[in-house]
């Protein structure tokens, strides 16, 4: 371990950077700042690259944080308050004030090429706190989220970013949601786990428990203990369409998603219209109302057009590649009205099916003609869906639990089918 004591100015800088990142919603902690101080003491402070990597490996713990981190660090290095303003860099560029190293963690020393912090320009050297407008900071945060979190955005000329409708759940509805969560927890199919649990007389000999028991009887093993594999619920993946055509269901659907996440299951939730957004995080809080509002805020294209194929493609590439869907129960909730190539949709659903234990497609708004769904996308995807559930009134939400219970734990009976054309 190194004994180099970090200099004061270095610590002030680390603290200021941490504050700047926090202002924009990056979760940095005080201990990260402390580690950064220690790290900086080991490095050549004139070297931007070294300082950058030291700060990044301590402060940004998520690849999605990196763009935001980069923006803040760039400003930090130039010696400006590491807060993006509403108008971005232009406004900050003309800011002549240089924050000086004064008391507390408010000031921000510069790392110029001489490696020393620059002196305050005058007695009024601005403090970081003065640079951050209280109301503006919130807007910045909103902006930051929008800019940096929708990384999977697929461009669409027709995309309409609608305003999320007012969202308030009555106490009654919340209670219903909790019931749904409970139903779900019971209904989700299980799989064999590698963990073991005690059994009565079958399975493998459990030495640990046997020795413990023998201790009670002076070393005599009266009855050996056994253990067998335990069962755990399968991972649940819910991919939900929130486009314009699904608008009247979206409020209820999000409620259902929230119930899924809150049910204590291993669940991941995504919503899409023209782009795919992961909403597990926002939905994971304990305050359902706030979670729903946050989830809505995270979805840029609420009630815009639909691009199911590209959205599933984004899912297959960004998430399924890493094993998200493996052995999972995948539930797609959509009406299948897609404005893109149905062949792509078919390909992506097939890909999903190859990895998932079961693909369930819930279509709340089925339109049929002679028993065949009318929506092109729906028709194309149908051969690759294990359970197609048309006409389920998701507004009643309770149905979802019942649906899942009906899915069962077994592998679906899949026949070899002619593959989707790849041209």
């Amino acid at each position, binding site marked *: 371990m190194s004994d180099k004591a970090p200099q004061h100015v270095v610590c002030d800088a680390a603290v200021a950077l941490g504050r700047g990142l926090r202002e924009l919603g990056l979760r940095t902690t005080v201990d990260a700042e402390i*580690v950064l101080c220690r790290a900086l003491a080991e490095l050549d402070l004139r070297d931007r*690259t070294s300082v950058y990597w030291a700060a990044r490996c301590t402060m940004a713990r998520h690849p999605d944080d990196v763009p935001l981190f980069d923006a803040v660090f760039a400003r930090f290095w130039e010696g400006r308050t590491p807060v993006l303003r509403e108008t971005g860099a232009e406004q900050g560029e003309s800011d002549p004030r240089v924050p000086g190293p004064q008391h507390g963690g408010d000031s921000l020393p510069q790392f110029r090429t001489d490696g020393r912090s620059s002196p305050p320009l005058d007695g009024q050297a601005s403090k970081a706190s003065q640079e951050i407008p209280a109301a503006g900071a919130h807007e910045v945060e909103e902006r930051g989220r929008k800019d940096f979190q929708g990384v999977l955005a697929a461009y669409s000329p027709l995309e309409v970013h609608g305003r999320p409708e007012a969202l308030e759940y009555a106490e009654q509805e919340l209670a219903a949601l909790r019931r749904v969560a409970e139903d779900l927890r019971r209904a989700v199919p299980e799989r064999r786990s590698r*963990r073991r649990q005690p059994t009565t007389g079958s399975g493998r000999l459990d030495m*640990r428990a046997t020795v413990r028991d023998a201790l009670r009887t002076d070393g005599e093993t009266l009855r050996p203990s056994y253990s067998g594999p335990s069962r755990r619920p399968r991972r649940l993946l819910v991919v939900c369409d929130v486009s314009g055509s699904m608008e009247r269901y979206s409020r209820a659907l999000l409620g259902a998603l929230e119930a899924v996440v809150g049910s204590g299951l291993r669940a991941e939730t995504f919503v899409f219209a023209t782009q795919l957004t992961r909403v597990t995080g926002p939905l994971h809080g304990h305050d359902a109302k706030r979670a729903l509002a946050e989830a809505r805020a995270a979805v840029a294209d609420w009630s815009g057009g639909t691009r199911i194929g590209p959205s599933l493609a984004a899912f297959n590439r960004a998430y399924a590649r890493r094993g998200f869907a493996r052995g999972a129960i995948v539930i797609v909730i959509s009406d299948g009205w897609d404005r893109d190539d149905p062949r792509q949709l078919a390909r992506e659903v097939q*890909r999903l099916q190859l990895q998932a234990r079961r693909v369930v497609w819930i279509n709340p708004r089925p339109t049929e003609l002679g028993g065949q769904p009318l929506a092109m996308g729906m028709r194309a995807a149908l051969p690759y869906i294990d359970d197609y559930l048309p006409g389920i009134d998701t507004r009643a939400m309770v149905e979802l639990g019942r649906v899942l219970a009906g899915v069962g734990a077994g592998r679906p009976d899949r026949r070899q089918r002619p593959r989707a054309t790849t041209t």
Partner: protein
Amino acid sequence: MSEGIEELRLALGRERYLADEGLATVLFLALRLRRPLLVEGEPGVGKTELAKAVAAATGARLLRLQCYEGIDLHSALYDWDYPRQLLHLRAGEPGELYSERFLLQRPLLEALRSDPERPTVLLIDELDRADDEFEAFLLEFLSDFQITIPEIGVIEAATPPVVIITSNRTRELHEALKRRCLYHWIEHPDLAREIAIARARLPEAPAALVSQVCAFVQELRWLDLYRLPGVGETLDWTQSLDVLGRDGLDAATADKTLGALVKTREDLERIRGGGLQELIDRAAERRGPPAA
């Protein structure tokens, strides 16, 4: 770049692991500050190799803990030697049953008790495969390099091991664990670096072949594939072509050997459908990313 970092980079280079400046800096800090290093990245960017290279470069012993679903305390930290305990009980010998005598070391405990003369690199591989309860076991270990065994007490490390944790991000690791680590995200290498890596790993392969293959793979990474080829696949493919006695890339051979590089049928069809020759030509004139 500081001297220490450059030195480390050279040392890794001698083990044929070519780290970029970012990785070298972060690794340098992890070694200096004695913090565990958490590396994440796409499959095949060399996360596990990194730990092996660090061990080789520092002359340390490598201990590897491969995580899997259901891994628990007793396969990662310590366990008791139950058959011996039972025998001991039956024989009625004096002595405590839960003592050092009957303690079995698993990788984490072994890392703590390793020879002070010889440093240890502990690789905790694919932590995201373990269930999240397991992360809680690691917290004490990672922050204080100690383990508490209820029957014995606290076991501390004489010399803290270098800890490298890898994850494929199939799930988000817990914040508490991340807080105890330095974090680094490894990207796929750029063309120059990938060529350098292939040259270092496969010194016998013709230089022209190596650069053509690497450019081709870089080109593939811009395609919309389900599974992007990693450096490991690049090396496999180069080797395959070399074994076949090719000193350059041609469409016919590429077509026959593509299975060493791309391992999904859909991706194979996509690449072949787009025309191999065209890809090879594009790779040949490759400078920057092609227009989408």
